[in-house]
């Protein structure tokens, strides 16, 4: 029996303390320490829905094809198009994301990742207000207050609260008893079950985050008193405790989730939250407030960082004549306006996670899918190119939820000599350069 320490790519926490036990044939016997999401990621190598050869659609059915034929058809489709879009890239390594941006530049395309409908918006808004980042180790060792706003990590990132709230850091040796948890959510999620005597559960009325944030801005600057009837369904005593905790503690981390990213008619709750954090950082004399942006896919943050370092913009990159041009569009508006004639989908499932009115328009044009298993998009794509599973069958770099880069580990060789996403995109890029 051999024991190895590996990195798990089940979610954006990228746990690097997972131990696997291998038998003499080099196969996994047991996985120690990983949650159910991580265990499923490792077991997916043997999945029956894995794609092992390229496929081309003829007369509404997908037929197996050789690699040469599939690549030839792909390049033909790219050459016939003049306005292609590329989408996905949040389950691939950073090196593959860089190749994707180079491909978009070479074919005058528009490239975007899942972060454009998720935390990429927060990162872009923070350019106007400024934001303080922090790392998980800081919260483990020095954190006092953890505030979950519209975020339920127990269902999406199971080990997050284990690591930051229950651990006994160097300067917080009493662990759970000294850290305070505040949860703001309209529904009583599973995060309310781990509350202790110092914690503050707040059940807010649906769609009234903006009201609460605007009131908190005035209260923290002492321009307004807390009204006796409370705000947005929260009563006065709870609000007093919330304000006292925010203004008087040393290290506060706010974790933002999908609940805060909903668009609203009356204003911009996300921007106002970032401004509230700026105000708190000036009013609070002892400490500081920082944010962590919660997302599910394991390398969504990586695309933001790769795109920022290559082009200066973190999402929605439009290229024309091999240069980046300004645009107000993102992937949703481009599909809505039918402003594309070919789509290349890499490692994601837009037919499942985009609303019906968008997926209806996406299928009207030709589509190329690069993925390792079947999903809803597989049933409508015109060409399917299989690749290896990142983090298990190939290595690379990925960024964690707190923007720390982690090196992934390779365990096995892929079946059928499948290329990794990076190798496939390099091949396509080289062939386009030759012509």
């Amino acid at each position: 029996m051999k024991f190895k320490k590996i990195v798990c790519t089940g979610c954006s926490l990228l746990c690097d303390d997972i131990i696997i036990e291998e038998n003499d044939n080099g196969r996994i016997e047991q996985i120690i320490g990983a949650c159910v999401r991580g265990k499923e990621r490792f077991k997916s190598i043997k999945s029956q829905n894995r794609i092992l050869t390229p496929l081309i659609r003829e007369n509404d059915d997908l037929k197996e094809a050789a690699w040469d034929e599939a690549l030839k058809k792909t390049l033909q489709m790219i050459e016939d198009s003049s306005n292609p879009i590329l989408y996905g890239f949040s389950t691939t390594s950073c090196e593959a994301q860089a190749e994707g941006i180079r491909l978009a530049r070479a074919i005058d395309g528009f490239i975007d990742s899942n972060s454009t409908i998720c935390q990429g918006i927060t990162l872009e808004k923070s350019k106007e207000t400024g934001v303080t980042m922090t790392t998980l180790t800081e919260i483990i060792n020095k954190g006092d207050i953890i505030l979950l706003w519209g975020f339920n990590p127990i269902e999406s990132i199971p080990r997050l609260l284990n690591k930051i709230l229950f651990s006994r850091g160097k300067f917080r040796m009493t662990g759970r008893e000294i850290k305070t948890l505040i949860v703001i959510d309209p529904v009583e999620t599973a995060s309310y079950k781990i509350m202790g005597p110092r914690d503050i559960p707040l059940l807010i009325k649906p769609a009234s985050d903006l009201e609460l944030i605007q009131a908190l801005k005035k209260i923290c600057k002492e321009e307004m008193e807390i009204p006796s009837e409370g705000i947005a369904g929260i009563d006065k005593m709870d609000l007093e405790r919330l304000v006292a905790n925010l203004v008087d503690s040393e290290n506060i981390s706010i974790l933002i989730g999908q609940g805060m990213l909903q668009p609203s008619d009356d204003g911009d709750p996300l921007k106002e939250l970032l401004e509230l954090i700026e105000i708190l950082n000036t009013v609070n004399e002892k400490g500081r407030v920082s944010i962590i942006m919660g997302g599910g896919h394991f390398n969504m943050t990586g695309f933001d960082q790769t795109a920022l370092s290559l082009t200066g913009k973190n999402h929605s990159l439009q290229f024309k004549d091999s240069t980046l041009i300004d645009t107000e569009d993102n992937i949703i508006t481009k599909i809505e306006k039918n402003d594309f004639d070919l789509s290349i989908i890499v490692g994601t499932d837009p037919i499942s996670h985009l609303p019906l009115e968008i997926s209806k328009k996406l299928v009207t044009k030709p589509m190329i899918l690069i993925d390792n298993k079947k999903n809803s998009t597989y049933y409508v794509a015109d060409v399917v190119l299989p690749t290896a599973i990142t983090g298990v069958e190939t290595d690379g770099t990925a960024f964690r939820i707190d923007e720390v880069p982690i090196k992934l580990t390779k365990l096995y060789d892929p079946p059928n000599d499948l290329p990794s996403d990076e190798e496939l995109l390099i091949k396509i890029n080289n062939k386009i350069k030759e012509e």
Partner: protein
Amino acid sequence: MIIIPTDNFMDLYKLLPQTNCGKCEPKTCMAFALELLKGNVKIADCPPLSEDPKYKDKLAQLQELIGAEEGKKKELRITIDDELCDGCGICVTICPVNARYCYSTLSGKVPDYPPDEHQLFVIKDGKCELLALDQCRRITAQGRERECRVCETYCPREALEISYDIIDE
């Protein structure tokens, strides 16, 4: 397996004299309550409770609470519901025995494998597994520390349950 209606021995302790007079074998009321729960002593083994008329009400309530379980030997059980558990590892990090012997749980990391002989919980293949029940605080500690229930209180899916079950004879 019959499970006693209350597995919190503090409920039993509140109905005892709480004087620590020393006339019973465990010598303190706190320890007597736990031994009563586990079936190692009977209510009659507390002389003030049975003889002094001012404890008549407490005696009656105690007899009703324990009922037919008096004297039947029970032992500690920690059961984990496999379908509810999602492998989050909060029980591994928060158990005070794990924190004392496995230093990597101090920062929330996975303890070494093969496990230390004192380690109580380990996450195998995405589910929690109990390793060494005899190391639990409820068995090895003295005084108030015996009433340790942190793993049951803080499990977010309520998959852990602490109970005292009758030993099959």
